[in-house]
């Protein structure tokens, strides 16, 4: 039985900018918890308590949050990957601390305990695979009698809809095949070429990836659908709460607020009178929302301050934004250009961290605002604004 897991958490997630400018992809919060925490909790629930975290890009964010793992009932050792060259290169950094058998997981795909429940009993070397609707985004695995025949990365035409989850069970033998390549699938193909067998196991469990900023919203809604209500802080009389609503310690919810779960509200927040929070919304710690604002299906980061009378739908608001009154971020279909892809999505505004918006700003559907932007009153935001833009 496996006792150790090596979690690859060094990556940036470029297509998720501006949300990954100051943190690694694994530290993006979904329902008020970083993705990495879901991975760690899934491992702890499966009895795997010795973790090696390979960190790199903004590793301090991971140190600060995960610590030595005590809070999650695991024991964490950190290994640094100075340059993010690939998953095989990342894994090699952990060579010295690896045990005879170990799991390897990406730290930035959201999984739950049932995802890996059966996998931890499988004999290495092994790959966990899953059936998906859109396999061409991933590494497609051909399987023959429970054994891997080969892996093709992002094929133009997929031979099957079974893809590699990036979750593996290995022995130390993997290191010798990983030396000459940058990514783990190439190492596996080397192994196959050398005549080794690699087992494949299919999972029905949760396995979710964030690729674009708006994926944060769909993941958030999936995870929120599984939460259970809990109440901390102060809830004034005349507050209406229905469904699964989590309220953190030290949070005040003022009279007249109307909250329909699933909703998560962090600690130390001040939710003003007659604020309306609709499914599926996550609100971070130390957030202030002033009276008569409506928030729906959105993710609000830590330390955000939202003024009165706003409408925020299908939006992601980064940490530390100050948004004055009557902000409108309504949802609508939009074609958003990220790198060279422009998928059509239904989305509101994506606001980077520490933006400062004066009164009556309107964000058009699909706008992506960089970090530290400043916007004067009554301005209309559209398209994509680089970091530190001034909209005067």
């Amino acid at each position, binding site marked *: 039985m496996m006792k150790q897991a090596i979690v690859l958490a060094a990556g940036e997630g470029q297509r998720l900018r501006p949300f990954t400018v100051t943190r690694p992809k694994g530290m993006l919060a979904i329902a008020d918890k970083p993705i990495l925490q879901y991975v760690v909790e899934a491992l702890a629930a499966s009895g795997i308590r010795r973790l090696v975290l390979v960190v790199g890009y903004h590793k301090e964010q991971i140190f*600060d949050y995960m610590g030595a793992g005590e809070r999650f009932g695991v024991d964490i050792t*950190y290994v640094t990957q100075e340059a993010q060259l690939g998953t095989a290169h990342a894994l090699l950094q952990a060579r010295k601390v690896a045990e005879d058998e170990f799991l390897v997981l990406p730290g930035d795909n959201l999984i739950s305990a049932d995802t890996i429940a059966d996998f931890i009993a499988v004999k290495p070397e092994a790959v966990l695979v899953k059936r998906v609707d859109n396999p061409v985004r991933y590494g497609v695995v051909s399987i023959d009698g429970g054994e891997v025949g080969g892996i093709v990365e992002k094929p133009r035409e997929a031979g099957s809809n079974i893809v590699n989850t990036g979750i593996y069970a290995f022995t130390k033998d993997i290191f010798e095949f990983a030396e000459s390549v940058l990514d783990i699938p190439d190492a596996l193909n080397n192994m196959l070429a050398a005549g080794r067998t690699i087992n494949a196991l299919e999972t029905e469990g949760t396995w979710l990836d964030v690729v674009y900023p708006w994926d944060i919203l769909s993941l958030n809604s999936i995870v929120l659908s599984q939460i259970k209500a809990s109440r901390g802080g102060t809830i004034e009389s005349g507050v209406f709460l229905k469904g699964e609503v989590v309220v953190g310690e030290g949070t*005040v919810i003022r009279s007249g607020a109307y909250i329909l779960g699933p909703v998560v509200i962090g600690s*130390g927040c001040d939710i003003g009178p007659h604020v309306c929070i609709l499914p599926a919304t996550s609100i971070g710690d130390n957030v202030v929302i002033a009276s008569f604002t409506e928030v729906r299906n959105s993710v609000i980061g830590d*330390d955000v*301050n939202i003024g009165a009378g706003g409408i925020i739908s299908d939006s992601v608001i980064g940490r530390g934004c100050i948004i004055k009154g009557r902000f409108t971020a309504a949802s609508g279909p939009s074609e958003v250009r990220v790198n060279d892809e422009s998928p059509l999505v239904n989305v509101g505004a994506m606001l980077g961290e520490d933006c400062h918006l004066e009164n009556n700003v309107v964000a058009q559907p699909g706008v992506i605002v960089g970090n530290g932007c400043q916007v004067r009153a009554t301005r209309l935001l559209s398209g994509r604004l680089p970091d530190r833009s001034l909209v005067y």
Partner: protein
Amino acid sequence: MCGIIGYIGSKRAHPILLNSLSKLEYRGYDSCGIAVASGSIEVYKDAVRVKALGKMLAPLEGTVGIGHTRWATHGEPSKVNAHPHCDCTGRIAVVHNGVINNYQKLREQLAGEGHILSSQTDTEVIPHLIEKYYDGDLAGAVEHALGDIEGSYAIIVLMAGEPLVVARKDSPVIIGLGDRENFIASDVPAILDYASRVIYLEDGDLAVVTADGVRVKRDGAEVTREEHKILWSVQDAQKAGYEHFMLKEIHEQPKVIRDTLAEYIAAARPAADLTSGATGLGSMLLLACGTSYYAALVGKYILERLVGIPVRVELASEFNYGGQASAGGRAIVITQSGETADTLKAIKKLNGAGCRVIAITNVVGSSASRLADQTVYTRAGPEISVAATKSFIAQLIALYWLAWPYARVDVRGLDDLVVGLRQLPVKVQQVLDNEAAIAQSARRLAGSDNIFYIGRGINYPVALEGALKLKEISYIHAEGYAAGELKHGPFALLGSGTPVVAIVAQDNTYEAVLTGIKEIKARKSPVLALAAEGDDTVTALADSVITVPQVDPIFSPVVNTVVVQLLAYYVAKERGCPIDFPRNLAKSVTVE
């Protein structure tokens, strides 16, 4: 100033003592030792760090023992002066944190009675006094011996076949409760691995600790002391990926601010009552030592600007010699550990004068919190690095929150203040995200022998704190100066080899600080400026600039402090200094 530890139970005491002692090294680490009882008492000690002592030891079998890590006050660090100390027979061993004032007299007395004292320490008189009074009742003998002693102490007494006996007066000690085992320590972090419930002893308490229970006596009568649950976790006391505790603690600051604020805001009431019944808000006295003193100096500017009352700040260690407090007055006393001896003495003096005392401290149940009329707790968690970082920031947050309800500004101004406070975690995080640039600036300072820090107004104490941090951990001579004072003397020391770190705030001191920088440039000193984002004037003037996020000037000490903390850290790292354990220093100074 030292750390003490005791264990009684059914496990082998030796590894537990060493592990716990290593966590007390922030209190002193020039020598250490342990004593374990199994039939007879075995003592191992030397002028080495705990890790080195551990390597010297063969496994010891006893399940009862005591340990000590020392910060020398009486007698140089050496094997003979290290604790534990024993009586003539070697049957009684004692560890002690504190100072015995009348030890010379007691030494002579004991020597006259035929006792052989071999060290230069004040502590050694204790085991000999106990030996003298022992007639089969260890607790009685300890009580009798302590009756002869003038001074401060937290002691643990070990005798084979007997329970551990613990006593305190003016020095901290706690008892951690386990399952058929008990722990005694100077401070909570030492026993986080083993126990989650503690008893805080009060001054004058004497406790008899067995594996199964704790009996506390006071003036001969048995008393009960409440059990407290420890809220700190083991994780708080581990390095978690970072090379040093100091850097970890610097990085914890956004969370510390968030946690501290969440607690204050949730309480939905003023942190403490600053008014005095008859006169309303009068003047205020702020007292502290070391880094906390600089927090108090920032507090002066906060209170004077927001509340508009005159504020006096004094060093507690100076106030104790002739400082005056008025009856019915108000004083805010700041101490991270709540055990700083000079500060505690000042509180007692203030209590005696009829002054109401508000303590700001990080340690629940600490002596300061018990002596003060009101206590405002900071939520910094345990601070292991000797150089204070997050506790200082938490103290500033407490001071803002103390002043806020009494602020003489209109409603709009108050709202802006609260928004500004709530934004501080993000602003501090932005400073941390700029770490690489700060490290680069630090490398340019690392070769200097002397560095000046200047600031003006509310950032003058930040200049002092920046210089203190640098001195503490990098051993570079640094001085903090009010920017306007440099020309009254220190100008003579400027030159191309003496860099100046200038803190430039966007407030009424801005022009004056710029003038100061020009004067310094004329004396050829390289200037490293801390300036707000987008300040092109300073960028053009200074040799190099570290940009800090824009905040309301009243909050600028928070972001600027984090910059000078990182500067000191990276200078020390560049010079290869032992950052978490600087030479000759200890975390909290529980001797006067």
